[in-house]
């Protein structure tokens, strides 16, 4: 008898569900083969503990019914509340914090004193021309001087 075949018989169906023929086959082979004997014993003990597990009575606590009914009422009460109310309950904290933040930002933007930034200060010391000409305002040429310089240069080029 093939050892694998015996183990397959054991794994294929519960031990009490084996036909008398199969059971006799397993037992007789197990008397000759140690590994099959081991497998058979293990299957027998597995069946035994599973049987005990299923048949062990489970006594519910005396408050079980009360607890179930309380949970049922709670769930029903929750279902009777309108959808918008449930939505509000779940998002109340988020909406409140968002409103508070918006209000705080509004207050700050209207009432906080305007502090000029460093960039503004720098920009005010330079005129557009000074920036264009790469000069500071103190060294700045007047508009006429610029025109004269340009036209004089052009005249020189023509000559």
């Amino acid at each position, binding site marked *: 008898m093939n050892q694998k075949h015996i183990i397959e018989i054991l794994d294929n169906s519960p031990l009490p569900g084996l036909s008398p023929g199969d059971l006799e086959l397993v037992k007789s082979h197990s008397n000759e083969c140690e590994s099959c004997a081991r497998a058979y014993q293990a299957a027998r003990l597995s069946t*035994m503990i599973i049987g005990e597990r299923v048949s062990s009575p489970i006594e519910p606590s005396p408050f079980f019914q009360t607890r179930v009914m309380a949970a049922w009422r709670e769930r029903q009460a929750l279902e009777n509340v309108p959808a918008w109310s449930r939505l509000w309950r779940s998002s109340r904290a988020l909406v409140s914090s968002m409103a508070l933040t918006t209000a705080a930002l509004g207050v700050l933007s209207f009432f906080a004193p305007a502090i000029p930034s460093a960039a503004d200060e720098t920009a005010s010391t330079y005129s557009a021309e000074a920036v264009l000409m790469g000069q500071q305002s103190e060294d700045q040429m007047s508009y006429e001087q610029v025109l004269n310089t340009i036209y004089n240069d052009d005249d020189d080029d023509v000559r």
Partner: protein
Amino acid sequence: MVEEAAQEVFLKAFTQLDSYEGRGSMEGWLTRIATNTCLNILRSAKRRPELSVADLTEDESHWFDTNAGTAGDEQQTVEDKLVASDLADKLLDTLPAEDQVALLMMDGENASVKEVAEATGWSESKVKVRAFRARRKLRETMEKLLGPKAVGREGKVAQ
């Protein structure tokens, strides 16, 4: 955990009572709710890694000593039954949720493949595969736990 599962089953049954169309039996409908609830609870529970001899309590080791190599028809004391039931819990915890359900229903409650398939909504081949895997895993773990005790003193399996 059992009470929590039972409470959840009752609550679901109350809530989904409208969905019961009266086509099948009430028992079948409730069994399906119970099976699915238990499956969800078992899936969310953390699985125990492999069980070794070191994980056994003194009582459990004693239970193995007493029952290994015997015919298995000895009268079990109340304490023995409790130890066996705890041992079953430990061993079942090492299996995936689906395998536990298939094994308990088929080997524990003697349900047929068809009955398990109806209760779980699985195909019959899936039920067979799950039960086969569960039995094999349980047998292999049991063999490991039994060690050399598996075969009777005379080297033969008790008849």
